[in-house]
């Protein structure tokens, strides 16, 4: 399948140059469903969402022909151009349009082509979507709104096709922020997000669109929001992450194990409102916490986790909370590997924290 990209992104997403095993490949097959990649899982979820609600719509830039990442393939043919349609390239207008549509009792599933392009829509999302229910005293709400957008590094994306802007949206009461780590998770969490009665910003790890392959049940299922998942149990240190970073953390866990460090790995899944209890329980057990995300470290969501856990687990912590995140630079072009919170950086921080 040809990848179609625009706005100066010259290469396809599929050919990541470094090895990038995902947590999913390590997971046991569930025995149901076919192995599919992440964009196909998203595609399945969108099919189900439109199938099960005649007033659900998918729209955004290029979604009519399947989208630049193929997530919306086949939807327009199946559900018609009245429900699956291209918008002009105007993110602020798209977001506002989606809010109006949702306010009239519809399920508006808007796609912002890259998370980097979400900033023109930031005003609408922050000032209108997040506050619609509150400032109208519940006369109206735009709970039917879900904004899907691909985020994160992809190996060669450069400044404007690689950013992770999730923390901005976590600072806005009234929004939910959800990020899946794998195809199975993506399908279940996306369906939950679409059906959740609150506006949700759903970030999709674009690096995993093709790389992550997992058996995904074909039926309609939902995974709970605001519930973190302990995906590997351990006793020496708790690692918290989300999205594509989970697979990097998982590799770090494997390497740590070889030097005798037992890591507990938690996928936060929903960033807002986040599952403090699960993280707290884990840190109370291990006494140590490391948070890792691709976004720059300063003001990233890791800071919020670090602070909250320090408040809740101060007397149980045996080391400062470690943050292994992106650098405080714009997302770089050539030196992306130096910017990224790589496995080795995480492994070093694990060792340091454990031997603090």
């Amino acid at each position, binding site marked *: 399948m040809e990848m179609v990209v625009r706005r100066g992104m010259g290469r396809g997403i599929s050919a990541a140059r470094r090895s990038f095993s995902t947590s999913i490949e390590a997971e046991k097959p569930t025995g149901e469903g076919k192995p599919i990649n992440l964009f196909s899982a998203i595609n399945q979820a969108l099919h189900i969402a439109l199938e099960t609600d005649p007033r659900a719509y998918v729209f955004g830039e290029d979604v009519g022909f399947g989208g630049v990442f193929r997530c919306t393939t086949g939807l327009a043919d199946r559900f018609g151009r009245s429900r699956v349609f291209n918008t002009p390239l105007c993110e602020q207008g798209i977001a*506002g349009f989606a809010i109006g*549509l949702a*306010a009239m009792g519809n399920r508006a599933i808007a796609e912002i082509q890259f998370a980097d392009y979400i900033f023109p829509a930031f005003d609408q999302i922050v000032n209108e979507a997040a506050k619609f*229910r509150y400032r*109208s*005293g519940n006369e109206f709400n735009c709970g039917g709104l879900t904004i899907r957008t691909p985020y994160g590094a992809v190996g060669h994306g450069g400044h404007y096709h690689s950013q992770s802007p999730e923390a901005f949206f976590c600072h806005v009461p009234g929004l939910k922020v959800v990020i899946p780590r794998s195809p199975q998770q993506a399908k279940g969490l996306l369906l939950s997000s679409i059906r959740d009665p609150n506006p949700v910003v759903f970030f999709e790890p674009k690096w995993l669109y093709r790389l992550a392959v997992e058996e995904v049940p074909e039926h309609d299922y939902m995974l709970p929001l605001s519930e973190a998942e302990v995906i590997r149990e351990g006793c020496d240190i708790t690692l918290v992450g989300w999205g594509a970073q989970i697979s990097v953390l998982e590799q770090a866990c494997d390497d740590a194990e070889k030097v005798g460090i037992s890591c507990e790995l938690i996928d936060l899944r929903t960033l807002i409102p986040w599952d403090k209890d699960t993280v707290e329980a884990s840190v109370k057990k291990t006494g140590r916490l490391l948070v890792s995300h691709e976004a720059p470290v300063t003001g990233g969501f890791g800071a919020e986790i670090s602070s909250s856990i320090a408040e809740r687990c101060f007397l149980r912590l045996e080391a400062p909370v470690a943050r292994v995140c992106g650098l405080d630079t714009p997302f770089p072009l050539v030196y992306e590997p130096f910017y990224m919170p790589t496995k080795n950086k995480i492994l070093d921080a694990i060792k340091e924290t454990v031997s603090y």
Partner: protein
Amino acid sequence: MSAFSALKTIPSHPIAGGHRRRSSPFLSSLTNTAPTGHQLHSSAAISVSLSHSVIAPGRPVRAVSANVVSEEKQLDGSAFPVISREEALDLYEDMVLGRTFEDMCAQMYYRGKMFGFVHLYNGQEAVSTGFIRLLTDGDSVVSTYRDHVHALSKGVPARAVMAELFGKATGCCRGQGGSMHMFSREHNLIGGFAFIGEGIPVATGAAFSSKYRREVLKEACDDVTVAFFGDGTCNNGQFFECLNMAALWKLPIVFVVENNLWAIGMSHIRATSDPEIWKKGPPFGMPGVHVDGMDVLKVREVAKEAVGRARRGEGPTLVECETYRFRGHSLADPDELRNPAEKSRYTSRDPITALKKYVIEHGLVAESELKAIDKKIDDLVEEAVEFADSSPPPPRSQLLENVFADPKGFGIGPDGKYRCEDPGFTQGTAQV
């Protein structure tokens, strides 16, 4: 023929005696002088293609000025009133309600009864009344930060609007919004939008919903959405984004510009490269109409056609209503920037006085009846204040409600109680 009257599409009413002229280099290039018509769509002669702005061959691209600043009066020469007695009474009552309500707001604001910033609508009543009184209950209105009167015209009771301004539990948003946040699901008022232009895409989405219900779900839905915004907003990107989308998808929406000539402290003429906003319709493939926003009858005529077009599924219209606010931008604005001569020029064209004169001269209504309406509205607004003043404040739980659909986990703690019920809530020791 005035500078603006290259195209006259609606009868000019005697109350419209304007005094303002603007240079109009663009219009001088038009050679067409269309005959007077009563409906924009009905006359090929007024569907003038602006040759240099046609972007879609075959699509009618029209720009129409309703001769708003004509010095001439009684151009149609008609002695017959263009409205019925019932309509006259309704329009008059609605405009007086808007004016009286806003004057009362000023009093209450200065007495410290209101929260937040308050922007009054005085002077612009012909626009709200001219458009909204034509709408059905199912039609939607999207407003701005100057939204009290739009709410009233749409039928939201004055007491509910006043109580909202007082931040009381009986307000139309339960006191959770305030002045710039009037919503009513019952009346399909989809809100005041305090940020410039933010209501326009929301209105566009609502209009799409109506079209979908009608054309795809085959529901009996011919609802129209009317988006109000000001001249300042017409320099904002969302305006252009949505003109494009609405025309592209032929949505049942009317974009109503309330051009009161001032964007807070910035003169429209100084802020906009081409101040004739209505001319921005045709480049997007929709009619642009210019109308005297101080003349409710003219506004109503234009509104009839624009709303009718939307209802018939013929797509959006851009209407520029040239109006003026009689007060400062907000009640915090001392209004020192505007030239007193300009102000008095417009106050002398007070839309309520003009309508009054028209209906009396045409023998539609006796002066005593209008006085009775004035009295009725005075009482109504007084009652609204009493109602608002005596209403209870919202429960403290309001602070934590409606952030998310379900307050559990956010507003409601693990014990199942609102966190604000914790005695420590106001002492800053409870976790919220």
